[in-house]
Each structure stands twice: as C-alpha cells, then as structure tokens.
C-alpha cells in the first residue's frame, strides 16, 4: 500500500487553497455585521436563526461551523435524531443525568423543551442564566432562539413567553483557559464525538479479533477474510515505518502504540467521511488530536535516553557559546513537535470538511436560500462535481494523515531511544 505522494501534496494544496478564501470571506461578513451593529443599538440579528421572520437568509460560515462542531444529539439525515446521555454538573444544581431526548430536538437541532434550565441550541447544551426561569420541563417551542453580538461576544437569547433570557455559553471544560468561555455548568456528556470514538474502537476491536482468531485457527496457511485486508496494512506500517525509524531490535515494544494510533486515526477519519451518518468530526477536533499528541509526548519523553537529552540540553560538537542557544531551540522543539502533530491532523481534516460544506453551501448561495429555483439548479450543477472531487481528495487525506501521524511518532521515538555512536 504505497502512497502516491503526488496526490498527498496536491490534496494539501487544494485543501489550503479552498479553505482559506472562505475564512477570509467569513471575516468580511462578520465585519459587515459588526458595521451594522453601530446603527441598531449595539445589537444585530444573527443570520441562520432568523427563520421566523419569513425572509430566510443563509450564513455559510455559521452553517459550516455548526456542521463541524460536536453535538449532544446524533443526527442522521436531519430527521432521525438519536438522543444521547447528558451528564451535566453545575455548582448550584448539582449533578443532572438525563437523555437529550428530553429537549425534543427539532429543526437545526434546536430543542423545543427546556429541562432544569438547560436548553439545546444547535445541538449543544446551554443553560439559562436567569433564576426566574422555571426549573422544570418547560415547552419553549421551535424558533425561540436569537443569536446576537453584544460587545464582540456572541450571545444566544431564549424567547419564552414574551421575555428574553440570555443563555450561558456552551461548556468547554477548560474554564476559559484555551479560549472557551467560563460557564456556570460543566458538560461531561457522551457527545456525538465520544459515541463515534467508542463505535470505532468497538469496530476495530472486532476486526482485529477476527484477524487474531484467523491466525490461531489457520496457522501457517494463507490469510483469508479480514486478515487479507489488515495484514498488508499492518506489515506496511511495520516494515516502512516502525523498523526503519525505531530500529530492528527495539521496534516491537512500540508496535502496539503505532498500530493503535494508525488504525484509530484512520478509522475515525473514514467514519467521519460517511455522509449524513452523524458526520462526527472527531479527528478534526483539536481536543482529540491534542490528547493523542500528549500521549505521544509522554511516550517520547519517558523513553528518551541519555543521548537524546544530551543533544537537547548540551549539544556535543558545537562551540560553547552556541550551546545555550541550541538548548533553548531544542527545548522548544520538544513541545512544538507534539503541538504540530495535534494541529496538522485537525487542520487537514477540518479544512477538507469545510471545503465540502462550502461547496454544498453554493446551492443555497446561488439559490438565495430557496427563493430562486434556477439559481439552486446552477448551484447544484456546480456543487455536486466539486463535492465529489473533494470527497475523493479527503479519502486520500484520511490515509495520508493517519500515515503521517504514525511516521512522525515513530521518528520522534526513534530519535529519543537512539544510542550515541556516530
């Protein structure tokens, strides 16, 4: 299974090409909105949630960002909604465990009910800050959310019985440390991404179990069934990644890590590319890739030998006055390596998804969100081939990024456990 590296580079360039203009354009849009802000008393209707007014608008940025975000409901084709368990904790209300079906998520994954002051907006749980809001199961109905920009901050408002209640931001568990907002509650729920990870882990376990059973039962015979799918990939990673980078006599210790990383990332990448099936964007989530990168960082740091640390803090063979400078650069490198590992995977997957979503968005942009039929047809005629092309590219990127993550991990480990004989 050799990668065609032409395609890898091509895919990267295409992804970069198509994802960048969109983010530039998105900024332009929000600039315009902020420009409006000064005219209308510091508040402006956010597009995408203003359907009740009748003049439908389409905000491609908000749509794309909504579709790559995590959610508390597993949506298939926008009409089958599988509720997921909610595990919420707030300091004043304590622990709350219930099913997200209580919210009765409807159109745009907006919940039509509020429960214990929690509501669902675009698939994510928010909390009503106001104490006067009933602490019970309350029907709030569809189209009851408005998003506004107040002081450069997007705030969602809930309209209930003629009154407006500001909502808390969505919980990010980091307490505002990494750009998330400080919230009055914590969300430990099994979200769409977590469910997908569990599913992929179960599928991988089952596949490898089948293969393992095959090897014990048909020892010495030619592989069959699932074995013949997994064996070439497995031996490719072993012979092209593990042995050359780590070394013939020590690679066996790191094979479980490398194989788990490769197949887990590959499985998640491929699962995320099945259209409509929840479209969980797991490997495009910085938290997930961050945890994978921390794992690699720990393994590399704890298997580092004397030779490795000597090369970081006191590089031999260079003049003494260069040594502190090199030590600084190398020490930074220790942290930058896992950081780029995290960013590369998430960046590639997200840029692919955003490219596809913006091609699909062409239909609504040309069709003026359903007002112009001819425009929609033109948009569809452009969108379908572009989307199919992008999906083919994404399929290659799924393999290449899993491979790159593994090969880089192997090279970092190889550098860490190297013995010093030049």
């Amino acid at each position, binding site marked *: 299974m*050799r990668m065609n*590296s032409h395609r890898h580079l091509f895919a990267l360039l295409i992804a970069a090409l198509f994802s960048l203009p969109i983010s530039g354009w998105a900024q332009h849009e929000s600039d315009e909105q902020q420009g409006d802000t000064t005219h209308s008393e510091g508040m402006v209707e956010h597009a995408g949630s203003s359907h009740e007014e009748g003049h439908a608008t389409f905000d491609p940025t908000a749509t794309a960002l909504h579709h790559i975000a995590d959610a508390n409901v597993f949506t298939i084709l926008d009409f089958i909604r599988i509720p997921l368990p909610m595990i919420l904790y707030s300091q004043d209300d304590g622990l709350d465990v219930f099913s997200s079906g209580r919210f009765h998520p409807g159109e745009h994954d907006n919940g039509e009910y509020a429960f214990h002051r929690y509501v669902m907006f675009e698939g994510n749980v928010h909390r009503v800050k106001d104490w006067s809001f009933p602490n019970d199961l309350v029907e709030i109905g569809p189209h009851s959310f408005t998003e506004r920009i107040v002081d450069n901050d997007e705030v969602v408002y809930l309209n209930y019985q003629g009154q407006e209640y500001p909502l808390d931001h969505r919980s990010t568990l980091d307490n505002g440390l990494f750009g998330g907002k400080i919230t009055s509650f914590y969300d430990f729920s099994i979200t769409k991404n977590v469910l997908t990870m569990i599913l992929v882990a179960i599928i991988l376990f089952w596949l490898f179990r089948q293969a393992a059973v095959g090897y014990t039962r048909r020892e010495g015979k030619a592989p069959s069934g699932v074995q013949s799918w997994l064996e070439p990939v497995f031996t490719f990673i072993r012979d092209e990644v593990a042995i050359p980078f780590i070394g013939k006599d020590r690679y066996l210790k790191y094979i479980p890590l490398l194989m788990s990383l490769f197949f887990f990332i590959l499985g998640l990448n491929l699962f995320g590319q099945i259209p409509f099936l929840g479209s969980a964007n797991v490997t495009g989530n910085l938290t997930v890739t961050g945890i994978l990168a921390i794992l690699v960082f720990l393994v590399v740091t704890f298997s580092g030998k004397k030779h490795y640390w000597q090369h970081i803090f006191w590089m031999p063979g260079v003049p003494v006055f260069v040594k502190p400078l090199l030590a600084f650069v190398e020490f930074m490198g220790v942290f930058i390596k896992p950081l780029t590992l995290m960013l590369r995977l998430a960046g590639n997957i997200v840029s692919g998804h955003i490219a596809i979503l913006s091609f699909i968005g062409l239909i609504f942009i040309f069709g003026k969100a359903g007002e112009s039929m001819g425009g929609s047809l033109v948009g569809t005629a452009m969108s379908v081939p572009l989307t199919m092309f992008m999906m083919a590219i994404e399929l290659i990127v799924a393999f290449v990024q899993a491979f790159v993550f593994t090969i880089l991990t192997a090279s970092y480990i190889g550098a860490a456990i190297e013995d010093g004989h030049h």
Partner: protein
Amino acid sequence: MTSLIAIGAGLAVIGAGIGIGLIGGKAMDGIARQPEAAGDIRSGMILMAAFVEGAALIAILLSIFMLNG
C-alpha cells in the same frame, strides 16, 4: 487588524507552498536519477512535507486564534 491577520495567513501559505514545492521537485529529481530508491525518497519526502506543513499550520492556527480572540 483583520486584513493584517489575513495577509499573515496568506504569507504562511506562500512559504509552505514554496517549501513543499521544493521538496517535491527535488524528490522527483532524486527518483528520476535513482528509480530504485523511490520508496525511501517518497517516505522521506512525505516526512519533510509534513514538517513544512506543520510550520504553516502553526501560523494559520495563530491567525485563527487572533481572529477569534
């Protein structure tokens, strides 16, 4: 400020493009010169491209963070 950030992101991509282009070009040279080493050259090329891409990604992510914060 926004346009400055956008220019920065664009410059990062130009840099990565030049870098990856050079890597790809030299690798093709190498493969043409020594087709039997194509496998080694290819995996080395992907590795190097990934490093170059990593530098560009840091710049892009920084600009996204600056846009949001």
